């Protein structure tokens, strides 16, 4: 049980149920603020740059990128892994915290899930464009095709990846959507606008809140939650296998799957922290996303950051302990020192050291510091992927084929475009969808006051 007297209130102010609906739905009913248009404008400009880069890639080919035969994977794979990692938070929030009965997740899970869906879309664009001829992407589907009954290679992690990401996208989107159905019904039943009533009514799927609906809804949530938990672990394990099955120094390690999964959840939680800080400040959702929520996320980040630090050190230790001179070279001459040392130390400091500040309660309760650290963690996680992809590839076994990698503006534009797409998606979410799961927050509102029910004989906890 969430102990209000120990961990603080989950909802500030004594709110009635209808107040909860009204306050969460306020951004949907209110006039769109000016900053929203400005932010949307900037996002769209970024998106246009991305579209232009994609157009150039499509019409002229991969040669417009900075990748070469030695560093065959560049920013695209870095960004792909980065976005997929960010996309892990939604499911982690909704599912792990659902299974662990963490009541504080209710104020944040909707935003995390929305972010997941947009981030996975952004991620999927990169491997698609990296194919060179993306219009033939359907070749990955395992179907008996016109080139003779030739099947895809079921043994390849790249194929597993395709399956995992498609499944992950579909499942997180449906989990997100079904969570919103009761809230859409609330909008349908409380709004005064006829257009909104019709539109949200359509998306509410005829929800009435009857006990039959709730019973099956809860059953569905647990089934989806239970199986998607497996998916969170499998998706990033598979992404890591793309690397780990190769005989490449710095990649060929069994540490990769857990290291990638934990890293993914780390970056996802950091991005959630960025978003909820904005929701607190820009949309005045501070009563629902209290300091206690931010505090809880920060505590998790401290813990995950320690795991990240352990993983980094383990990698270095094993490189030395294995006695393999290629491993030694990669880690000691091409990561810790050498031309890519900045990216290595950026990664190490931002991911393993900086979040240690969250041990201090003062830091956890200072929203601006939390916001800044969350941004640094995202940057650090990007450096981590750069570090893995580029340093290992640039100096391979044959010094004659060593090469440097510099991104071209097409690659940078592509990345900026996905940032714009993500920002635009999040802004649309802020504007048109309840940012917080209304029905779930109503459910926990009763825990806000001291509960005495559990003292009565024969009382069954509904949260157990």
């Amino acid at each position, binding site marked *: 049980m969430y102990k209000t007297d120990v961990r603080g209130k989950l909802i500030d102010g004594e709110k*009635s*149920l*209808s107040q909860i*609906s009204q306050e969460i739905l306020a951004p949907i009913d209110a006039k769109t603020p000016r900053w929203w248009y400005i932010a949307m404008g900037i996002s769209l400009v970024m998106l246009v740059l991305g579209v232009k880069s994609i157009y150039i890639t499509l019409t002229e080919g991969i040669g417009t990128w900075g990748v070469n035969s030695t560093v065959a994977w560049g920013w695209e794979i870095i960004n792909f892994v980065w976005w997929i990692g960010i996309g892990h938070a939604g499911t982690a929030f909704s599912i792990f915290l659902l299974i662990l009965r963490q009541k504080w997740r209710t104020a944040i899970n909707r935003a995390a899930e929305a972010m997941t869906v947009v981030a996975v879309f952004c991620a999927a664009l990169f491997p698609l464009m990296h194919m060179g001829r993306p219009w033939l992407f359907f070749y990955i589907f*395992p179907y*008996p095709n016109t080139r*003779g*009954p030739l*099947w895809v290679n*079921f043994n390849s*992690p790249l*194929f*597993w990846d395709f*399956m*995992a990401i498609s*499944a992950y996208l*579909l*499942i997180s989107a*449906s989990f997100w959507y*079904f969570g919103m*159905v*009761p809230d859409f*019904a*609330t909008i*349908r*039943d*409380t709004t005064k606008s006829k257009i909104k009533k019709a539109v949200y*009514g*359509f*998306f*509410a*799927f*005829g*929800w*009435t*809140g*009857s*006990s*039959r*609906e*709730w*019973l*099956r*809804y*809860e*059953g*569905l949530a647990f*089934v*989806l939650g239970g*199986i*998607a938990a497996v*998916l969170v672990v*499998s998706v990033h394990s*598979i992404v890591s296998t793309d690397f780990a099955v190769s005989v490449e120094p710095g990649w060929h390690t069994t540490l990769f799957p857990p290291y990638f999964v934990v890293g993914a959840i780390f970056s996802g939680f950091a991005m959630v922290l960025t978003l909820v800080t904005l929701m607190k400040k820009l949309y005045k959702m501070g009563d629902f996303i209290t300091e206690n929520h931010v505090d809880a996320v920060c505590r998790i980040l401290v813990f995950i950051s320690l795991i990240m630090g352990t993983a980094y050190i383990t990698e270095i230790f094993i490189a030395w302990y294995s006695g393999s001179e290629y491993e030694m070279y990669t880690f000691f001459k091409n990561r810790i020192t050498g031309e890519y040392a900045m990216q290595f130390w950026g990664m190490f400091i931002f991911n393993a050291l900086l979040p240690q500040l969250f041990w201090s309660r003062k830091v956890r309760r200072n929203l601006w510091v939390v916001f800044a650290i969350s941004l640094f963690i995202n940057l650090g996680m990007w450096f981590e992927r750069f570090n893995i992809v580029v340093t290992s590839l640039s100096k391979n076994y044959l010094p004659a084929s060593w090469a440097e990698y510099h991104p071209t503006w097409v690659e940078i534009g592509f990345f900026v475009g996905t940032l714009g797409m993500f920002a635009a998606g999040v802004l649309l979410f802020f504007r048109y969808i309840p940012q917080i799961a209304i*029905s*779930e927050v*109503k*459910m926990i509102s009763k825990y806000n006051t001291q509960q005495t029910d559990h003292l009565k004989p024969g009382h*069954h906890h*509904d949260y157990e």
Partner: protein
Amino acid sequence: MITNKKYLVGVFDDEHTLKDAFQKALDKGVVIEEVYTPYPIHEILHGMKYKTHISHAAFFFGLFGVTAIIGGMYYAAVIDWPLLFGGKPFNTFPSFIVVSIVATILTITILTLLTFSIRSKIYPGKTADIIDIRATDDKFIILLDQDKMGIEIPAVTQLFQSNGASEVYQKESTSN
């Protein structure tokens, strides 16, 4: 068939009064047609005695999915188009496991969602049969069918009101 149904609607302001009144009504043998709440309340779900087998259904969808997927991969890799990779076996089962897990999860999700949609009659664009429009906002509604409730109207009105109902009213419905 369209019939005129007469309902009695009890409106409650919070979960506690709803649960009390619900339990007392059940104890008196009142037949409750349906309860509408802004969020799931487990005592009510238990009390209504509905059962859902959605998790069993999901299990069988999974069984079906995993058989179909492993069977499909076996067919592709061994029967239909075997490829020789330096003496490795055609049936490379361990590397089928990952796809089997992921695709099984996908199968379970899609089929369970469909089952939920069909069994709960929840689908895009459906017009909601709203009894009391406040039930998705802040009111808790107990609905009784006047023909089947097994108690007289004044008695049940009295029961609800003495247990904290903020309103009790009659409603006629022309649907089903």
